């Protein structure tokens, strides 16, 4: 039973930042832009959250700063791909690279350290007190160790899935990804909508970064996002426009991560368990593509 508790906790720790970034990616993809800068935006969000929390003394202000900076990064990304018509992939690759180097640079300049920063003054995001619910066997210990930001994910997913399915805003975003000209001919400002989407995506990546650095751990280390942004992107490609499937898939990959951590304690070369979440994601991507491939060939015969 301890094992289940352990794996569930690890899965949540892995999945929650991915879901935040993944929703950002989902909004972006729904509007027609495959944003591969999620990784860098999340990493930078983590850095900003740590730095702001350290200097301002409050994780709430840390999160706020991460969100604001995330919005600014998203806006800049949007300007580069929308207003200046940069190729979304080239800009995305460079953006990831820029932000990763920038965190190392700022880490050295602000904190005078290389690699990673941690301090007793660094306060993590508080955990939501559950009162008597925390006493539920097994589940209680998992749930009571979750931060406010983790719980906040639930309304966020509800809101996003409501906006996407049932509001004019969601309709317009979906139409944008489907056929830009349809939206343009309705007299809507396509460029402004795409910019807005990137801002929201940046904000969500900022929260994802804050949870990553101040959730289960309280530290920042260079490259700590470790491909989570790319996994989020892969999940978005897998699940399309279904927010709850995103949550489910992220949790499933989180479980493989949890299993991987457990396996590392067993007598297995550590590298294979570490590969697990990436390998499973890639495998899922291949299987979905294979299914689509079989379906189209059958139809054309």
């Amino acid at each position, binding site marked *: 039973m301890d094992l289940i508790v352990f794996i569930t906790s690890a899965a949540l720790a892995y999945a929650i930042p991915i879901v935040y970034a993944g929703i950002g990616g989902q909004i972006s993809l729904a509007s027609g832009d495959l944003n591969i800068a999620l990784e860098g935006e999340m990493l930078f969000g983590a850095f900003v959250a740590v730095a702001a929390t350290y200097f301002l003394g409050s994780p709430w202000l840390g999160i706020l700063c991460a969100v604001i900076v995330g919005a600014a990064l998203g806006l800049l990304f949007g300007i580069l791909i929308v207003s200046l018509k940069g190729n979304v992939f080239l800009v995305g690759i460079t953006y990831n690279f820029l932000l990763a180097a920038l965190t190392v640079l700022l880490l050295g300049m602000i904190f005078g350290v290389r690699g990673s920063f941690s301090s007793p003054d660094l306060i993590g995001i508080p955990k939501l007190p559950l009162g008597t619910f925390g006493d539920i066997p097994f589940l209680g210990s998992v749930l009571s160790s979750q931060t406010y930001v983790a719980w906040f994910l639930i309304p966020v997913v509800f809101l996003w899935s409501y906006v996407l399915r049932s509001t004019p805003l969601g309709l317009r975003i979906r139409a944008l990804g489907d056929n830009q000209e349809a939206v343009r001919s309705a007299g*809507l400002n396509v460029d402004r909508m795409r910019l807005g989407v990137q801002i929201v995506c940046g904000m969500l990546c900022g929260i994802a970064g804050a949870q990553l650095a101040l959730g289960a751990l309280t530290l920042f280390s260079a490259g700590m996002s470790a491909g989570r942004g790319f996994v989020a992107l892969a999940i978005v490609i897998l699940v399309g426009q279904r927010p709850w499937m995103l949550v489910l898939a992220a949790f499933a990959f989180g479980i493989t991560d949890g299993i991987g951590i457990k396996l590392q304690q067993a007598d297995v070369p550590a590298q294979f368990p570490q590969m697990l979440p990436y390998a499973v994601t890639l495998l899922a991507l291949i299987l979905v593509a294979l299914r689509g491939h079989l379906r189209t060939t059958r139809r054309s015969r």
Partner: protein
Amino acid sequence: MTSAPNSTEICVELKGITKRFGAVVANEDVSLDVRSGEIHAIVGENGAGKSTLMSILHGMQLPDTGHILIDGKERIFHSARDAIALGIGMVHQHFMLAPSLTSAENIVLGYEPGTSLKSNTRDATALVRELFNRFDLQVPPDTPVRELAIGAQQRVEILKALHRGARILILDEPTAVLSPEEVETLFSRLRNLRSSGITIIFISHKLREVMALSDRVTVMRRGKTVETLTTSQTDQNQLADLMVGSSVSSDGKPRPVPASHVRESMLRLQSVQSPTRPGNSGLKDLDLDIRRGEIVGIAAIEGNGQSDLMEIAAGVASPSAGQVFFKGNDVTRLHVGQRRALGLAYVPEDRHRDAIALDSTAAETFLSTRRPKNWIDWFRPAMSAADKARIADLMQDFDVRPADPDVLCRSMSGGNQQKLVFARELADNADCILLGQPTRGIDIGASRALFERIWRSRDKGAGVLFLSADLDELFSVADRIVVMFDGRIVSELDPQSAVPRDASGFMTGAAHAVL
């Protein structure tokens, strides 16, 4: 045939509209007036400036000079939304629909009921149903539009405009993609709309339809409005003369008679099939033989399999069943590069998708179809000085401007790009030439020059497959015309004895010939 307009009140007036794209003048000093409650047709050849004029009227583009008056007041449209606000709705030739959204969602897009954060799905469906009833236009509201037939998609487009409060409805070539029954239904719906007070501007180059539907008709030629006539007081011949600028019969010079050869087969398609897709019938067991020294014209309405036919003949797509023979050899499994090496030339229908990469230079475009024969050729220089000189000569010869091999295709006009493609495909005296919509976007002089060359190639013994949306063009160029409908060949006509009107019956599936 048609009732007179209810009033003579003018609701749309365009005065002195001029619009240039670089050096090309799309509209020059165009004036037009449309009366409330009439169906006003605008006719003209491809490239006469009809679509540009309508995108100006719909706020998609600003005119360089000129005035737009709506209900007597001068207006400036900065975006489509301005035009929509004044009740001008447009049904584009290429539908502006989001394919994975439902019809109801497409109809309300941008003009949703309720506020931006209020749930609206049910409201939207109810509202759309009410529209259906009011205008007697039925479409399934909850079906994604990509699953709808073309006619239904067009109804979604019309409903979209009506939902936005259009009183003036512009339809850009609405019949191009429709089956004959759908055309009939569309026309009766449009008459209904007219009786409920909607003004309709109907753009077409099909005179028969214009005569059948419109109250008044404005003829455009080369970017200018030539004349506006009352439909009941004119006829097709007069309109045709006005469109072309001179009498049609005297314009076409006598068609050269094909040289008599032993007519062995050049390219033969034997019971080829391709899958049916939305908006495209695919091919259903089609046989076609193009012989040495003949020009076979293909007449068909868009989506009846003619594009599949071209791609399968070229080797860009492979048939799901059937065989392709080139000079007697089975080439079904050879792709276009290998067929080119055997003496095939191919002008694709969609220039920008398939024929020209805008970032290539003219010389690169020219040489792109040259296929290496063995591995060492891959490593030889792509272009010698002699190649370049030859390309420059050919460009001059085909009147490509500028005749500079180093110029980027992006900086050439569409007509010159197309002429460059002709130069590439016709330079090597191929044995079989496939031409997909070759005259799209080029002027009459260039078309004429192209026809001369095709005739010359034909006389040298080439077999030519010629696909065109323009029936008059087909009848003046081809030696034999094959009419396609629903993925099959339904008729074969001799242009010496038949006239374009004979083909149109078969194209719409209305008539069936015994082959």
